[in-house]
């Protein structure tokens, strides 16, 4: 029982990263119809941003947690204005080429400056040690990540569900053309929404810095699973991306704990689940077939 609860908790923590990244991808895809292959690179930049601020300017984790996502949001908005918005009405292949090219450029820029070695980032002072849950102890920092990620997801849900801006974003995400025809300037919201999605990736990166190895390829390793999460949740489905993020995190952790005799299955469980979901529901668990307008 203890082992099960521990692996579930570990899965929820991994799922928290998947959920934050998938949420950003879903919002960006919904609004821009762009699959942002550079999302993992922004996650990596988030972690590196926190590392560089601490190592070179002594900026603590808590400040980085606020500053880095904001800075990345601004970078994302600039890239959207300079490049991404040109993808509208182009073949999706250009979407892949541009965002994949951006990934390579961002990764190599970091590699040039910091090399490929992993850089250490200490757990912030107030979050060291562990929390006693009775049956087991769990690292305080991981408990923090889980709580923080859930709070962010709930906050985003609240903003989307209860505010006028959220209503417009939901409408434009679901049916951009119809929303324009109803008198709403969808284009006005595209750049901020892209920046917001990138900020979520950066936030996940800052959270990951004390827990995972900070290196230029950390995003590339993670993003493949995150894309599977988005597909499982339903491309463009905001709720689906969060639910699938936490769900896949747990499935992965259970597979690692209980399918260790079948390493191939344990390592590929995400993609097995994705294939099964697509066979059952081609639009994903919470996705809908593309509306015509």
């Amino acid at each position, binding site marked *: 029982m203890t082992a099960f609860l521990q692996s579930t908790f570990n899965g929820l923590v991994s799922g928290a990263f998947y959920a934050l990244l998938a949420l950003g991808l879903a919002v960006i895809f919904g609004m821009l119809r762009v699959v942002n292959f550079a999302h993992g690179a922004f996650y990596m930049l988030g972690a590196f941003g926190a590392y560089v601020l601490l190592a070179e300017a002594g900026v603590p984790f808590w400040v980085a947690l606020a500053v880095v996502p904001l800075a990345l949001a601004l970078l994302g908005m600039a890239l959207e204005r300079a490049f991404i918005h040109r993808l509208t009405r182009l073949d999706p292949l250009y979407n892949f080429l541009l965002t994949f090219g951006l990934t390579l450029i961002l990764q190599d820029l970091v590699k040039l400056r910091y090399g490929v070695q992993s850089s250490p980032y200490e757990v912030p002072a107030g979050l060291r040690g562990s929390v006693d849950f009775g049956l087991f102890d769990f690292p305080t920092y991981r408990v923090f990540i889980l709580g923080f990620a859930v709070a962010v997801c709930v906050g985003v849900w609240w903003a989307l569900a209860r505010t006028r801006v959220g209503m417009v974003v939901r409408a434009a995400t679901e049916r951009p053309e119809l929303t324009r025809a*109803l008198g709403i300037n969808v284009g006005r919201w595209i750049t901020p929404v892209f920046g917001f999605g990138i900020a979520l990736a950066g936030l996940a990166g800052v959270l990951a810095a004390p827990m995972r190895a900070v290196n230029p390829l950390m995003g590339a390793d993670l993003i493949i699973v995150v894309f599977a999460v988005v597909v499982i949740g339903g491309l463009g489905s905001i709720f689906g991306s969060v639910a699938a993020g936490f769900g896949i995190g747990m499935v992965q952790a259970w597979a690692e704990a209980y399918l260790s005799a079948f390493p191939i299955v344990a390592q590929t469980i995400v993609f097995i689940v994705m294939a099964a979901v697509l066979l059952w529901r081609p639009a994903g668990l919470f996705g809908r077939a593309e509306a015509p307008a």
Partner: protein
Amino acid sequence: MLRIENLSAWYGEAQVLRDAGLHVDPGEVVTLVGRNGAGKSTLLRCVMGLHPGWRGSVELDGTALGNLSADRRARRGLGWVPDDRGSYATLTVTENLTLPPTVGPDPWSLERVYEAFPALYQRRNSAATTLSGGEQQMLALARVLRMGARVLLCDEPTEGLAPLLVQQVGDLLREAKRHGVTVLLVEQNLRFATSVADRHYLLAEGRVTAAMENSEVRSRERELLSYLGI
């Protein structure tokens, strides 16, 4: 009020509209009649600024709309009711109604909409796509009236509806007309078209080939039916 001249439109290499022209005067209900694939929906999409490959002239109140974006056209008073009813699954009925800005001098209030459509009021907190087809059609029409749109572009609003609901759509369009709203209506249901329209344009292979007053329909019914392929 709405004047279309020499309107041509393409989907890739395929030309769908060929120098189509028509006009709708203030307060008129005008139908666009033609077979499937004649270009009726494309014409409405061009007027709304939603179709990328087009050439020609669309004027509203004597002003050319040119390359004005769809949202700006809506803000000038055009209200689009798409053929699939345009309900948002992620928005409740009330959100579907309150999403668009008000663009005209005489927008319906939410209370007035709910008074006219008690079924929508009862389902006001439900996702719009859980409504029946007829309720979704009423929602789409009510939404553009709530915007205060002065010109409704309705794409087959009676398609797939039961006779009683068709009658309700007709009542709603007649009431809108009484309040000075202008309507350009794509319709294949000739009986319905003649019950609400002042005039009809016939569209065949992308061209407006004939126009007739509603009073002429009975004498030219065979011609009309041939355009519809009946």
